[in-house]
């Protein structure tokens, strides 16, 4: 004896669905809004696997920095802290001075945490760090309109590793100069 239990169409499996080409994200007006991603359709009929092409060469135009700043664009933090050391205060003062001489430049402050803790809460912790750097630059006279922050949490480590030496290099704010503005 056979019983009708359920008949329904869901995934469009009956129709052979053609996969549309990968779409690019819409362009916005943000700073350096070049896309680094591509979306790929997932047709449920498995008829033809779609290839996934990555779009976008990765880098922004590099801004040449004076020698005393060139390799000093990262501020590091202690565990669970957004306090900026005296040395880094001096470093940020030097960056502020450079910005004062180059009105065409803007800065993006990229905040990061180590990998411990939940990912989304870490976004908040890295935002605190980026904002701490932003406040110091502001106190040194950099107009707030020239500063943006982006908070990556633990998503973009500088180095791999699960010990304090890796963690300490990942708890950081990167100072990224952007031309234009």
């Amino acid at each position, binding site marked *: *004896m*056979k*019983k*009708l*239990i*359920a*008949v329904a169409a*869901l*995934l*469009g*499996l009956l129709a052979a*669905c053609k996969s*549309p080409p990968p*779409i690019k*994200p819409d362009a*916005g007006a943000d*700073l*350096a*809004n*070049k896309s*680094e*991603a*591509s*979306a*790929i*359709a*997932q*047709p*449920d*009929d*498995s*008829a033809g*696997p779609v*290839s*996934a092409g*990555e779009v*976008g060469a*990765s880098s922004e135009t590099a801004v040449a920095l004076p020698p005393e700043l060139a390799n000093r664009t990262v501020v590091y933090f202690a565990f669970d802290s957004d306090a900026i050391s005296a040395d880094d205060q001096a470093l940020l003062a030097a960056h502020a001075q450079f910005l004062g001489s180059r009105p065409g430049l803007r800065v*993006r402050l990229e905040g990061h945490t180590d*990998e*411990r*803790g*939940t*990912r*989304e*809460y870490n*976004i*908040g912790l890295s*935002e605190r760090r*980026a*904002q701490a750097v932003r406040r110091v630059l502001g106190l040194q006279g950099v107009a707030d309109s020239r500063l943006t*922050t*982006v*908070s990556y*949490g633990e*998503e*973009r*480590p500088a180095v*791999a*590793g699960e010990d304090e030496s890796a963690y300490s290099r990942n708890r950081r704010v990167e100072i990224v100069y952007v031309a234009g503005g």
Partner: protein
Amino acid sequence: MIEVKKWVRVARVVWCAALVGFGVPPVAEAQLQVDITSGVTAPIPIAIEDFSADPKPSAEVIRRNLMRSGRFLVGERTASDYLVTGRASAGADGRTTIDFELLNLLTGQRLLIERISAAPAAWRNAAHRISDRLYQKIIGARSAFATRIAYVSVDGQPPSQRYQLIVADSDGENAKVILQSRLPLMSPAWSPDGEWLAYVSFETRTASVYVQRVRTAERRRVSSRPGVNNAPTWSPDGSRLALTLSSPGGNLDVYVLELASGALTRLTDHPAIDTEPVWSLDGTQVYFTSDRAGGPQIYRLSIEPGSRPQRITFSGSYNARPRVSPDGRMLAMVTREEGAYRIAVQDLGNGTVRVLSKGRQDESPYFSPDGGTLVYAARERSQGVLATVSADGLIAQRLAADRGEVREPAWGPFLPDVVAVQ
């Protein structure tokens, strides 16, 4: 009394190898393998014979599903209490029909005689549906074999990593990349109808929340305010997202975004970090993480204007990233104990907390739609892997990627049948 028994590598299965030619896209992606790490001591012995005239290895998919559940011991007919047999036939419309039977070998009783039919490309789904039917009949509870899991995969070394958003069947098969980027992707969340994923992408070097229709790749950027746009989750009716945004000064608060209109409502207003919102089943409240009391703890808040958050976690100094069970009675979360981050569930009725995982870096718990299992991210030998544990803590499995690392699993909802069961 049931006790946990280690079954180390009882069923190490490399899924893709057996199925060359089916569902293995040329795109390099993290394929999952399943290890059962513990199960119940008295699994039910069952034999599942190959279906006659079946052009696809449906019976093998079913065997693996039942084995992976931890509740069955799949073996020979002579050693089994139950037997499954089946026969496939091609219909005039091109669909494949499978007639299958479940027999109780101890009593001789036929427990199921059913027919299922599916388009050839949906054969895996048909096998998962049969698995769900068998599980329901024998165990007496609903299973979620015919569902999907989304997750984030990362490969390459910092700072040149590649991020992919992947959707796979619940057994890790049929993995497909739906988005890839050189900049981080995070926080995938399923819409209640299983059609869309919301996620966060940093592809423009700023954070934005997108919603993407999985089938077509149609997507929409729904939040790209200056600063933080993070942690989206769908309201139960699918019309709104709860998410985290930052003020110009960098303070994170929880908001509700109505998708049709773009209207934004602020839910929390506190100088602490408020984030990781998730909806109650009835959509009248959100649970979220806040460090307003010092360390992160979980709070509950009515979405009615003017409501005050109520703290609901009190054991330990770190409780975060809540997810509500499908019956609304339990909250899964990440808790810190002895310096390790682990998955815990808290009974929302009596407040009892139970730690379910044993790792050091366990995170991102997500309930299966039947509520019986939690999937979460763990680290093992410096590699990100996915793991599952039954909500009673008895059955644990690991799903390891063959390359790169995988994280942030999101278990999709039950889907309407795409195959006919008669």
